């Protein structure tokens, strides 16, 4: 049989059985959590020449839409990636980049810098903790770095600005 025809039939069979599984057999609780309509605005920065996220830990309730504004203090590029939610964005130097997404799975996920940026590149890791819906959300600022009063990000850091409904 023609190899391509075989592959096509295989793809059709696979996808349709996947669809059937998802619709009728998949245990409840697996899969995406629907958006709750809440919105969390989070400001974040990349600390200059330290390859650190600030805050480096974010706690959020599942289903809450995150509006994440990241200011890159460096003169070079960074990237922000959480592959489980399919996010991989460039952070231009000394620019604020806004990323919108709704965490649809609960768990503990790493976010990391996805653009080679020198020495500390592979250490530039933070954690996104997506809790159950009833969890109170929290941000944990990077304690190792002093807050700079002039930095807008620091002023806002550590708080959820709004729970719009």
């Amino acid at each position, binding site marked *: 049989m*023609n*190899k*391509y*025809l*075989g*592959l096509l039939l*295989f*793809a059709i069979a*696979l*996808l349709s059985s*996947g*669809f059937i*599984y*998802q619709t009728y057999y*998949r245990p409840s609780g*697996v*899969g*995406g959590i629907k958006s709750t309509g809440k919105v969390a605005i989070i400001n974040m920065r990349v600390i200059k020449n330290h390859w650190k996220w600030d805050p480096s830990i974010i706690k959020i309730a599942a289903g809450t839409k995150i509006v994440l504004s990241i200011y890159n203090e460096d003169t*070079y*590029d960074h*990237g922000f*990636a959480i*592959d*489980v*939610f*399919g*996010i*991989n*964005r*460039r952070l*231009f130097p000394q620019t604020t980049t806004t*990323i*919108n*997404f709704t965490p*649809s*799975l*609960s*768990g*503990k*996920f*790493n976010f*990391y810098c*996805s*653009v*080679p*940026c*020198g*020495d500390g*590149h*592979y*250490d530039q*890791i933070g954690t996104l903790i*997506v809790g159950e819906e009833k969890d109170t959300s929290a941000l944990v600022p990077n304690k190792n770095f002093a807050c700079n009063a002039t930095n807008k990000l620091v002023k806002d850091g550590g708080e959820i600005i709004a729970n719009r409904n």
Partner: protein
Amino acid sequence: MQIETKTTQVQKLYRIQGMHCASCAVLINTILQKQKGVQSVNASFGAEKLSIAFDPSIIPEEKILSLGKSLGYTFLSEESKTEEEFKKERESHIRDLRNRTIVSFLLASPIIGYYMAVHMLNLQHVHGIMVGSLFVDLNWIYLAMTIPVQFWVGWIFYRNAWTAFKVGSTSMDTLVVLGTSAAFFYSLIGFLFATTYGHLQTIWIGLDHPFWESSAALMSFLIMGRYLEAVSRGKVSDAVSKLLQLTPEKAILLDKDNEKEVLASELKKDDIFIVKPGSKIPTDGIIIKGESALDEKIVTGESMPVNKKVNDVVIGGTVNSYGLLHCKATKVGNETLIYQIVRMVREAQATRAPLQRVADWISERFVPTVIVLSLISFNYWYFVRGDGFTPSLLFMVATLIISCPCALGLATPIATMVGTTKGAESGILIKGGEALEKAHKITAVAFDKTGTLTKGEPAVTNIVSLKGTTNEDLLKLAAIAERGSEHPLAQAVVKKAKEQKLEVVEPENFKTISGMGVTAESNKKTIMVGNQLFMEKEGINIDEVKDEVTRLRKEAKTVVFVVYDKKVIGCLALADTLKEHAIAAIQALKKRKKEIIMITGDNEETAQAIGKQLGIDRVYANVLPDKKEEIIESIKKDGKIVAMVGDGINDSPALAKSDLGIAVGSGTDVAIETGEIILIRDDLRDVVTAIDLSQKTIFKIWQNFFWAFGYNVIAIPIAAGLHLIITRHSGLPATWVTSLGSILALIPAIGHEVSSVWLSLSQSALRPEIAGFAMAFSSVSVVLNSLLLRLYKKPKFIDS
């Protein structure tokens, strides 16, 4: 040319125009095979020829031609275009590839250099520059540079992949197209949608890591490989036109006692022509007057000159040695033996089975595997795990991108280049990668005898002197008598005397007795040198040397008697002698478990004598030129992969028919053109070196594939996210991952770093910059590994 084999079947040979890959031949074969009335089809990509047997009453020729047209190929009958035009076509094809290669490298090298540096050295990425107050994203520049590489240079691969698709196979081109397209469109969409324009981001987020270098590098190296291959292959097909130049251009026609110089092609059947001593026979014929010895080794392979007299057959292209001959033309033009050989070479080239290249062999299996894996990964993440559509799709695309083996483009050409250069340094010209791949698979080596294993000219091998005469005196006297003769045997005697620095004075009263020998006088005494017939005629008693003569004849040697002052003083034995390193070469081949075969047009005794001396496994003697090819065919049918080593025109059909033709460089142009490996020096040990070097090179290529694909094999499951199943447990790092992390943290100084990198990498999908690093690393390792071949040492030989 057209041979009626049955009343209804016609065998035809066409040139195919428009073939661009091995799949084309498969396509032509598959389609034509299905037609009613077609008995056999054989399209060859390498020779660009189609050999087809069909029944014109069921399927007219026009139908076949139009079928070819509809597939995109033109079938040309051999006569419709001159060799010149074909040459021009080939040259323009090579020029086109060269241009693509140059453009590709010009555009791709900055990209390759930049990404290699960033990924290998973990430098800071520069994504944009400020021109005044304007921010210029470098991705625009990379995009502009990659588009021509991906689509103009890569057009060749797209076209080939499409042909492969039509025949239902997945060649290397398919893999290249799949991998580079995935990388290119991933980069393009990621760049355009996820970064630059806000409103586009609402459609698509989540992938912004361009892989421009992936397609740029792969395309560039592959096109370079194709270019080099085309250059080396272009040389192969000139062979046949050279063959026809063997017969002399002019002939002397005898027209009612008038000698007239005419073009050889103007000779008609039954014309009478004259052949002067030392010149070539213009066409096949029969002697009607005169006698001579003819050097026929060029056609028949017989080492000794053949004595010919009235009513004997002469072959066009052979050399007349001493006598003036009047001959009647029996065959002219297409009927001549030489022309028949031309036809055989052409057909053998057209029907030579192509070898499946290593890269295609791998791709044939690798491509479907990758596609299946990418589908499974999407299915798993989307339907089973319930991840979002974007991340699930990304797992799938990542699998496809990772499958693109960047180093694949380097694996074959670099190793081939190093291998062939190394060969050229040792005097071995290897025409392209296919010759290499075939050489290492060889299980039997067939040798032509005359001119290949032996020197192809008679030499004095034994001197038997009777009591009262020294060997030197005997040789000296014989040489004095033979000095005036043009006969090759006589010249061999003189040569031997000169080698021994004997003084050979001018004889008196020199006389040649045709077909028997010579007489001459020196110091007022008669010297006679000649064969037994001569001795009998002169009434000379040869009983004294009889035993020796019998022994020498058993060794297939030609014996001449030397008579001084009416008395036999001894005899000389002459034979074609082995080339210097023939024995060492054969022994080395036998050690490598190759079957050694000898095919010769020479007689049984001579062949057996040489065969015994060399320890040859199978000897075929009395083989006419057209039968050599058949013998090769039958050896192939026994399941052997056979190399043919030869030098003569009579060997060229066999060279073309064999799996690998090795031409000895001292041989004729035609053999050299037909051979795929050419030994520049007249040293048979190079046959062994060629096979050995090919094996080493192919081994290198396999190693390179390991480096190129090993990375893919490891990276594909990671790209598909397989590791996450074991490193994550209900959304959290698995216990073993965290425990390993805390163990790693105990390492002094760097422990904390290592631990956090481990925790990070184990929890995420394949990070694009790590993929980039791995791709660069695999390319570098392939290059370095290939360069190790520079250290190749020739095999050692035991010379006896």
